[in-house]
C-alpha cells in the first residue's frame, strides 16, 4: 500500500507539502500532489520528522515478560514516534551471545512496530570479568554495533580499554553506564542536601564523572569510539565538552527525565522517581539542557525501563530503579527544549534521529527527508497537548514519572518503511 501524506511541514519549516511514500521510500515531495493509487492520510499541518531512534531502551524480553515484551515495548516506541530502538542487553539470559541478540532482533521483526537493534553485552553475563564474543554478535543477523553492560558499569579499566580497542575491528562502540561501583555501594539517590535529609544513601556526581573522565582518556589513548549513556550531572557535561574540544570520538546521551525532573521528588519516597543514575539538582538539569542545545550532548535516549508493579510499589530502598519513557520522550523534549527555543525541530531530528542512528551505525534510519530516502517518518502535532495516564499506555508497565503531566505535543502518526505503525495517535 502506497501512502500520500498530505499537509505536513518537514522539520516544522515552511509551507505544508504532500509526501508520497512508495515501496517503503519517499517517492515524491511537493504541493498539490494527485491521489493516484495512493491511500491518502491527512497530516493536519503536523511537523514531519524522520522516525525517531532510541539508543537506549530496555525491552525486558527475554526474562521479564511480566514487565515488558518486545511486542508491547516496540508498540510503545511506535506511539512515541520511534522507528528504531536499541534494546539493552541486561535481559535474562543476558544478550551476550549471537543466539540471544538474534532472538531479540527476530522478535522485533515479527512484532513489526519498529526496528529493534539489539545491544550486545560487553562482558559475559554483565559480570565485568570476561569480554563477551563481541565480534560474533557483530557478524550475526542482528548486526550488533553498540555494546554495553548497561545497568552496571564496565569498571575495570583494563577491560574497558580492551573492549574499546576490540570493537574498532567492526566499527562498534562501547556505551558506558558510568558508575564507579565503590562510590555507589547501596546508593539510593543523588547525594546532596535532599539525601542528607531523607536518610537515603547518596549516589554522588563524582561516581559518574570519574568514570567518564577515565573513559574519555582511554578512548583517546587507543583511538576508539566511546558513547556515554544517560549523562546526569553538570560536571559530566563539562568533561564531555572538554573531550570533544580535544577532538576525541566521544558521544553522549541524556534522558528525557534528567532534562526535567530533580532529586527533591524523592521526598515523597515514591519509587516511581527512583532511577539510575538518579535524578539530580536543578543546576544539573540546566547544564544538561544547555549541553543538549549546544551539541555537547549528542542525543536524547530514553533509558526506558519498565518494571512490574511489585518492583515499584515498594519501599524506596527495595524498589527497582527505572522509568518508562518511550511514549513521553518527544513531549518532554518539546516542553524543555523546543517550546523554550533551545532547539528547532530540525535539531530535534538530529538529536533524536540522525545522530543516534549514526552512533549506532543503523542503516535506513535517521535519514534526511528527501526523495529516495527510506520512509521512516514521524508526524508531530504541535498544538495537541495531552495528559499522561499511566493506565492507558501501551507499555506493559506503569512506572512513568510523568503521570498526570500535560505534554505539549503528540505523535500523530509513525511510518516504518512506508507502512503506518501509528495513525491518529493510535496503533495503525
Amino acid at each position, binding site marked *: 500500500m502506497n501512502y500520500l501524506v498530505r499537509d505536513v511541514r518537514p522539520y516544522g519549516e515552511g509551507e505544508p507539502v504532500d509526501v508520497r511514500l512508495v515501496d517503503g521510500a519517499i517517492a515524491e515531495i511537493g504541493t498539490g500532489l494527485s491521489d493516484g493509487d495512493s491511500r491518502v492520510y491527512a497530516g493536519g499541518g503536523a511537523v514531519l520528522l524522520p522516525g525517531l531512534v532510541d539508543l537506549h531502551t530496555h525491552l525486558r524480553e527475554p526474562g521479564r515478560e511480566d514487565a515488558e515484551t518486545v511486542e508491547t515495548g516496540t508498540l510503545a516506541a511506535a506511539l512515541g514516534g520511534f522507528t528504531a530502538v536499541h534494546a539493552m542487553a541486561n535481559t535474562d539470559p543476558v544478550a551476550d551471545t549471537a543466539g540471544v541478540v538474534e532472538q531479540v532482533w527476530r522478535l522485533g521483526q515479527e512484532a513489526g512496530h519498529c526496528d529493534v537493534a539489539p545491544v550486545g553485552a560487553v562482558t559475559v553475563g554483565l559480570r565485568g570479568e570476561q569480554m563477551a564474543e563481541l565480534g560474533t554478535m557483530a557478524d550475526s543477523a542482528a548486526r550488533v554495533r553498540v555494546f554495553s553492560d548497561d545497568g552496571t558499569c564496565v569498571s575495570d579499566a583494563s577491560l574497558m580499554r580492551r573492549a574499546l580497542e576490540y570493537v574498532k575491528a567492526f566499527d562498534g562502540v562501547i556505551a558506558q553506564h558510568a558508575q564507579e561501583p565503590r562510590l555507589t555501594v547501596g546508593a539510593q539517590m543523588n547525594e546532596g542536601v535532599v539525601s542528607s*535529609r*531523607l*536518610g537515603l544513601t547518596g549516589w554522588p556526581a563524582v561516581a559518574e564523572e570519574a568514570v567518564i573522565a577515565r573513559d574519555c582518556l582511554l578512548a583517546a589513548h587507543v583511538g576508539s569510539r566511546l558513547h556515554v549513556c544517560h549523562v546526569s550531572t553538570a560536571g559530566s557535561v563539562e568533561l564531555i565538552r572538554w573531550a570533544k574540544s580535544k577532538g576525541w570520538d566521544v558521544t553522549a546521551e541524556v534522558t528525557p527525565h534528567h532534562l526535567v525532573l530533580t532529586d527533591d521528588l524523592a521526598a515523597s519516597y*515514591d519509587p516511581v522517581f527512583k532511577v539510575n543514575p538518579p535524578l539530580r539538582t536543578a543546576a544539573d538539569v540546566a547544564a544538561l539542557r544547555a549541553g543538549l542545545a549546544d551539541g555537547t550532548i549528542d542525543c536524547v535516549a530514553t533509558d526506558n525501563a519498565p518494571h512490574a508493579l511489585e518492583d515499584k*510499589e515498594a519501599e*524506596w530502598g527495595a524498589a527497582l530503579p527505572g522509568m518508562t519513557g518511550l511514549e513521553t520522550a518527544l513531549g518532554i523534549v518539546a516542553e524543555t527544549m523546543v517550546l523554550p527555543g533551545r532547539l528547532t525541530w530540525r535539531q530535534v531530528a538530529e538529536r533524536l534521529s540522525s545522530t543516534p542512528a549514526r552512533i549506532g551505525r543503523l542503516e535506513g534510519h535517521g535519514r534526511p527527508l528527501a526523495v529516495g530516502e527510506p520512509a521512516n517518518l514521524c508526524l508531530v502535532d504541535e498544538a495537541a497537548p495531552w495528559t499522561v495516564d499511566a493506565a492507558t499506555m501501551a507499555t506493559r508497565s506503569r512506572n512513568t514519572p510523568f503521570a498526570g503531566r500535560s505534554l505539549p505535543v503528540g505523535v500523530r502518526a509513525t511510518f516504518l518503511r512506508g507502512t503506518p505503525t501509528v495513525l491518529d495517535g493510535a496503533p495503525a
Partner: protein
Amino acid sequence: MSRHLLSAADLTREDALLVLDTAEEMALVEERTVKKLPTLRGRTVVNLFFEDSTRTRTSFELAAKRLSADVINFSAKGSSVSKGETLKDTALTLEAMGADAIVIRHAWSGAPVNLARWVHGSVVNAGDGTHEHPTQALLDAFTMRRRLGRVEGLKVTIVGDVLHSRVARSNVLLLSTLGADVTLVAPPTLLPVGVESWPAQVSYDLDAVLAKSDVVMMLRVQRERMGAAYFPSQREYARRYGLDVRRASALHDDAVVMHPGPMVRGMEIAPEVADGVRSTIVEQVRNGVSVRMAVLYLLLGGASPAIGGDA
C-alpha cells in the same frame, strides 16, 4: 497535629509543646498505683516491627496499654521483607483488622511514608532506616525540659555517627523547632554531604564545644562502620570522639549527658559517665513511655479540641 507522625518536621512548635505538656500529664499517671487511663478503650494499636527493637516496641506497647488500647504486636522480622509487596500486603491486612494506629519500625528510610499512603489509620514512625525517629526526639526534648527546665536556648551537642543516625535527624529538626542551639560533632566521614543545609552547626572537635554545652547527646557508633573505613580504629574513635571521664569533667555543673541506647560502653561513652549523675539514660527510657502515651493520645483524637482531625 496532622494525622501521622512520620517526621519531627511534621510538628509545629505548638504541636511539639502540646506533646510535651501532655506527656507531663501522662507522667503523673505513671506515679499512681493504678497506671491506667481508659482513654483509648476500644481502639487498636498495632506495633509493626520489621526490625528487632525490644526496647522501642516495649515502650510503645506499655504506652498503648496504659491508655487501655488493644495492642497487637505484629513482628514482620523473619518474613520476606526484601519486597515492598510485603509492606503493602501487611498494610492491607492491618487495615482489615481495623487498626486505628500503626507504629512502624523499618530498615528502609521512608517506609512509614509509604505505609501512610496505604492505610486510613494513624502511622507513627518508630524509626525508619537512617531517616528519622521522631518519638525519640520528643522524649529527648522532654527529658531536657525536666532536667533543665526548658529546651529553648539550650546548647545541645550531638556527637557521633550523624550520617547513619535517625535519632540525630529527628533531634536536629525538633530541637531547632523548639529553639535550641544544636551543634553536631563527628569525624567528617560520619557527617552527611549536605549537612550544611541543616539547622545546626558542625564541629570536628569535641573538646572545643564541650565546655559550652548544656546537653551532650552521644550517638551509638556501630563497629561495622570501622570496616567501611569511616574511621581507622575503635581506639582512635574513642580517643577523639568518646565521652570519657576526663572529657566529662570539662562540662559545667548542670550539664547532662544523654544516650538514646543501646550504648557501646567504652566506645562512644565511658561506663563511669553513662552511670554518673549527669546521665539521663534511665530517665530517657522512663520518659519514653510518657511521651509515647501523649503521641498516641493526641493522634487518636483525645478529648482536647486542640487535637485530632486531618490536617
